[in-house]
């Protein structure tokens, strides 16, 4: 038999790991539970020819493989999330044996129980804000007419106009970032937790508009509709940005303990640096 490892999806409270049924994982095999104390890890046995360390380094660079694996990982976590609270595990975490998983559970049980308690009966919602096209000053027209002019005065006028446009563009972006911060602050007040992800690159989103906010919020199950209403209200108030809501997600962005708050600050700085 091919050497295999144990791929981990999530950690749950003991009771909620029942009912995995015919759920299939990243390697196409059944998922199963490894219990230790009050916790259960949901795992799949995977062949090391595809999921061993060397193979993973190679396969993670293969976009098609990465996509199908990410979707399969998410499918299992999504199905588990319906059964009860869980701590999602980052993609591509593989143990060599059940014993390794069990001792990891035992070592970290207090941390996992704390996270399970925090995310219980809550879901993650994603909110992204893009620069609205109309709030980005258009510079194409000026750029097109300038070369036609031979006069030095016209050239100077062009440069002046161009500088004015760049300043306007900079101010517009600064305003959008300020709006994004306000939106984030307001949404955070309606959530049990908030995390900022770095803005996504335009080549990945297929959206040329500048992304000024990429955030995740942990929202009580029963307040999901209210949260969406707040997003709608903010979208109406801040016409300079376009808001996009995704969710509900399993609590991926809230799987780590509270101490990672510094990450948010850093993400915000990245947004500010890229944006202005």
């Amino acid at each position: 038999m091919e050497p295999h490892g144990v791929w981990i999806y999530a950690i749950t409270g003991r009771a909620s790991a029942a009912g995995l049924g015919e759920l299939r994982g990243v390697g196409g095999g059944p998922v199963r539970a490894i219990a230790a104390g009050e916790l259960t890890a949901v795992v799949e046995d995977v062949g090391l020819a595809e999921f061993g360390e060397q193979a993973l380094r190679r396969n993670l660079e293969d976009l098609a493989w990465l996509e199908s694996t990410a979707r399969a990982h998410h499918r299992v976590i999504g199905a588990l999330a319906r059964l009860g609270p869980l701590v999602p595990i980052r993609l591509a975490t593989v143990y060599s044996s059940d014993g390794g998983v069990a001792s990891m559970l035992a070592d970290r049980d207090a941390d996992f129980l704390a996270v399970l308690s925090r995310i219980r009966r809550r879901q993650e919602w994603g909110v992204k804000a893009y620069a609205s096209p109309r709030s980005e000053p258009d510079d194409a027209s000026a750029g097109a007419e300038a070369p036609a002019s031979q006069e030095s005065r016209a050239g100077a006028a062009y440069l002046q106009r161009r500088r004015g446009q760049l300043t306007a563009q900079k101010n517009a972006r600064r305003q959008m970032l300020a709006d994004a911060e306000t939106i984030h602050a307001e949404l955070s007040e309606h959530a049990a937790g908030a995390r900022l992800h770095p803005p996504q690159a335009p080549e990945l989103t297929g959206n040329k508009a500048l992304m000024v906010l990429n955030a995740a919020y942990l929202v009580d199950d029963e307040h999901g509709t209210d949260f969406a209403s707040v997003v709608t209200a903010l979208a109406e108030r801040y016409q300079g940005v376009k808001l996009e809501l995704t969710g509900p997600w399993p609590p991926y962005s809230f799987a780590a303990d509270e101490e990672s708050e510094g990450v948010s600050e850093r993400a915000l700085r990245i947004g500010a640096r890229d944006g202005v």
Partner: protein
Amino acid sequence: MSARYESGPAMASEVEPAVVHGTVSQGRPHAEPTVPAERIALVDLLDRVLAGGVVVAGEVTLSIADVDMVTVSLRALVTSVSALAGSGAELPGARP
């Protein structure tokens, strides 16, 4: 029980971006799944499965934080998530 998860994309199907200027329409959080999991934007998913989730010390783990080892196509992808992946987004006591 058998076809329950196979046919139902579960949580995945409910994650659907749905917003435009000035208006937001919510992806049906409590409705039955009707949208295939494939509808989720890959970039949103990677933000979560690569940068979210707990990092635990697997014995055969390839940490995504190990960005230097992963080149070419993935490099573009991880640009949007590497800041988080390489940060302290893990539980206390984690041994990356």
